[in-house]
């Protein structure tokens, strides 16, 4: 192993590590050599030893058991259990069924004679009168709406639907509404 040349400052920096015995062999030998010819450095090492000894006797006792008891439990990823797991499953099923229903309805609108579908709806509304609203989810009776209103409602609904068939349905409704006037 080749001996590296340390300057005096580097060696002084390492004196505490030398005293603790944590230096590499090369560093230790370099300091050994320097100490033999540098009384000031040797004096500093002596001071370090005395200071370490003086400080070491002051170790306050610590209660390991008490500390360990106070340490929080590790936070682990919470697994879905019992009701929670069923809730998740039910939510997913609801979303799937609901979504599938919407798709089926949209496909019916898209594949059947769209004019006929809307006409049927309007006829049902007309036959049942205000007592039998076609749909209640809009917050009002669809039978009260004119053809233009229905077309506008359908167009607005299509904005919330990413299905490709949606635009087709919207286009299909308009001629019927106009024809119904």
């Amino acid at each position, binding site marked *: 192993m080749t001996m590296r040349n340390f300057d005096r400052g580097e060696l*002084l*920096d390492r004196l*505490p*590590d030398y005293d*603790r015995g*944590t*230096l*590499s062999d090369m560093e230790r030998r370099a300091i050994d050599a320097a100490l033999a010819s540098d009384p000031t450095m040797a*004096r*500093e090492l002596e*001071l*370090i030893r*005395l*200071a*370490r*000894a*003086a*400080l*070491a*006797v*002051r*170790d*306050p*006792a*610590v*209660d*390991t058991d*008490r*500390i*360990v008891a*106070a*340490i*929080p439990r*590790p936070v*682990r990823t919470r697994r879905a259990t019992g009701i929670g797991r069923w809730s998740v499953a039910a939510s997913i099923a609801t979303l799937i069924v609901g979504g599938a229903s919407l798709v089926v309805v949209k496909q019916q609108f898209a594949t059947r004679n769209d004019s006929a579908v809307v006409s049927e709806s309007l006829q049902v509304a007309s036959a049942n009168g205000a007592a039998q609203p076609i749909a209640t989810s809009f917050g009002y009776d669809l039978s009260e709406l004119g053809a233009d209103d229905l077309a506008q409602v359908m167009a607005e609904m299509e904005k919330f639907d990413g299905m490709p068939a949606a635009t087709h349905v919207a286009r299909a409704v308009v001629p019927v509404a106009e024809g119904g006037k």
Partner: protein
Amino acid sequence: MHPDANAAELAADIELIKRWRDGDEKGARALVERHAQALSRFAASQGVRDEVDELVQDTFVRAFAAIDTFRADSSFRTWLFTIERRLILDRRRAFRRRKDDSEVDERDAATAYDSLDTLVAEETAQRIRDAIARLSPMQRDVFTLRLTEGLSYKEIAEVLGSTEGAARVHYHNAVQAVRELLDDDAKL
């Protein structure tokens, strides 16, 4: 400390942290056993006289609660020192709100080791402790961390929120100051 030794210490600590995360309490116990004494020494060197045990405990509680923030850029012990020092500063601030600032500092510096005086028979050791107590707070922190804990200047800088170069200067100034204080005492 030698870089290889540092790396081995860090690897051992990381393994213990992993064990604790996996639900093994022995991992936490081993970490406490490895570092609690160093934390208590550091607390004493900071002038903490009462409830050192509680301070060390709080340090570990904080550390384990925030273990995810430990990035292993420095050693686990350095990280603990950083947390403990913050707690000490918080306590001092709280204490100062109740007491006069200067009175607290004077008392801390002059009597940091009073409770142990009776245990220390050797006169030189006492003189050295007195000399260390008269260092500036920053010099005392650097000197203590370097000598008793063997932290590198880089690690000391991390604990104290300073720079590596400043830590080195503070250390050498502290050594010089302690030597001069001892020489002055010897002349009396």
